[in-house]
């Protein structure tokens, strides 16, 4: 498949992973086998990492607490920050870890059921790690938009039902 169409295929699946190979094939004007083959290639190359569902847990009635934790780390020869980042991201409570520019070195996003739980994680697991010099925790109060998804009521279709 041409790179242009491969990109379009990825965009379609990124928007809705449940789009069937048949649908993708007709949208791109290629045959189904080609679509299936490309998807397999992308999966084994690790371009497609996995298929997820975007869930609004608040709406389901389950509370989840998120916090951004900026971490100051003293770098080590040869590994820089990688080893510390790795020790952090292995905890399942850790949602994301980034190396960032600015005052701090790592930005960690941690989730838990309660603020207490998150606070305990920071105090007992993160802060005591070797070479972690300081942590600054900010709790998320409200999530407006995440990964391109807006968490507000969807706007109604305001168009007239028929127009020339």
């Amino acid at each position, binding site marked *: 498949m041409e790179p242009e169409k491969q990109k*379009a295929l990825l965009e*379609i699946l990124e928007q*809705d992973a449940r789009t069937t190979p048949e*649908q993708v094939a*007709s*949208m*791109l*004007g290629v045959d189904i086998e080609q679509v299936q083959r490309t998807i397999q290639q992308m999966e084994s190359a690790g371009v497609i990492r996995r298929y997820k569902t975007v869930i609004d847990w608040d709406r389901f009635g389950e509370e989840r607490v998120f916090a951004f934790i900026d971490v100051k780390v003293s770098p080590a020869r040869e590994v820089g920050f990688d080893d510390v980042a790795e020790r952090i991201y292995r905890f399942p409570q850790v949602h994301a870890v980034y190396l960032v520019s600015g005052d701090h070195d790592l930005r960690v996003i941690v989730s838990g059921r309660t603020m207490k739980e998150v606070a305990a994680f920071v105090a007992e697991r993160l802060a005591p790690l070797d070479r972690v010099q300081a942590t600054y925790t900010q709790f998320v109060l409200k999530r407006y938009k995440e990964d391109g998804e807006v968490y507000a009521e969807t*706007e109604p*279709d305001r*168009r*007239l*039902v*028929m*127009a*020339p």
Partner: protein
Amino acid sequence: MKPLSQAVTSVPPSGIRRFFDVAAQLEDCISLGVGEPDFVTPWHIREAAIWAIEKGFTTYTSNYGLFTLRQRIAAHLKARYGVDYSPESEMLITVGVSEGLDISMRALLNPGDEVIFFEPSYVSYAPCVLFAGGKPVPVPTDYRLGFQPDVQRLREAITARTKAILLCYPNNPTGAVATRAVLEEIVRIAIEHDLYVITDEIYDRLVYDAEHTCIASLPGAAERTILLGGFSKSYAMTGWRIGYACAPAQIIEMMMKVHQYTMLCAPIAAQKAAEEALEHGEPEVERMRREYDRRRRLIVERLNEIGLECVPPQGAFYVFPSIRCTGLRSEEFTEQLLWEERVAVVPGNVFGSSGEGHVRLSYATSLPKIEEALHRIERFVSKRRR
């Protein structure tokens, strides 16, 4: 009381009114009957308009429209199509292409002058000609020829009273895009018979697997052409009511006279929004176009499977399949589909008699809705297929 205007009385009421009223009341009705984008105006454009209102851009503008907007449109048209229009004297900002159509007719026509256009056609053309005292002369196009303008029939329709040819490519309702060769032939005919050309190119940015030819860019065309363009479809700005007309200075001067005394100017906030659209809107235009294109391929393939044959449309956001396999007339099909399956489409005959035997489906609707509507249409057609 005394009778009302004959010109207005002679125009029949809109053919979709009846279906509109039903569709608006049915719950769970999926509408493929909408002639406007399902996207809202891109945020950067809305945001620029909010800023303009905050800053006090709340006044009239020049009758011609903001000079900076005209400059941007001129540059845009030059870059895309190689046409040269002077922002000082050859351009007018209109209240949508709708107004552009109206004032074109009023600027060109004397009582009884004939305007030829190809059918099926956008519903406003015949009424605009009639309101201006002219005589609409529809020329049918053929489904089997992809609704391309039929040059032979065009020649046959020309009389001593013919004043202008009105074109619309990409086309509403058929989605046809006229080939360059056909447009060149039309320009030759216009020159030969000394006719004006009015070209409604509102869908110019929505073409797929084809290239849009701006007829004004063809040799000898610009001096007799009124080019109408807009923001409604390409930038999803239908509610802003903004468009433009480009033509030789003498024609613009005439159109300006009507515009000046009937409209004064287009809304300034919409003009500021249009500037932003031209300046930074390109990625969004392309994003929407790509999305329409995917839906188009899907809907064409499914309709052909279902038995509602269609030639793949190359522009706009409509498919205009034949419903012959059901043996129904357009209005019967539309009415029964609406009541039975709660899917709204537009009967082809409202676009002129050569639209009979077809319906118009708009794919300016989200994919899941299109899928569901096609599922319902399939069930409907399978009960009737002969």
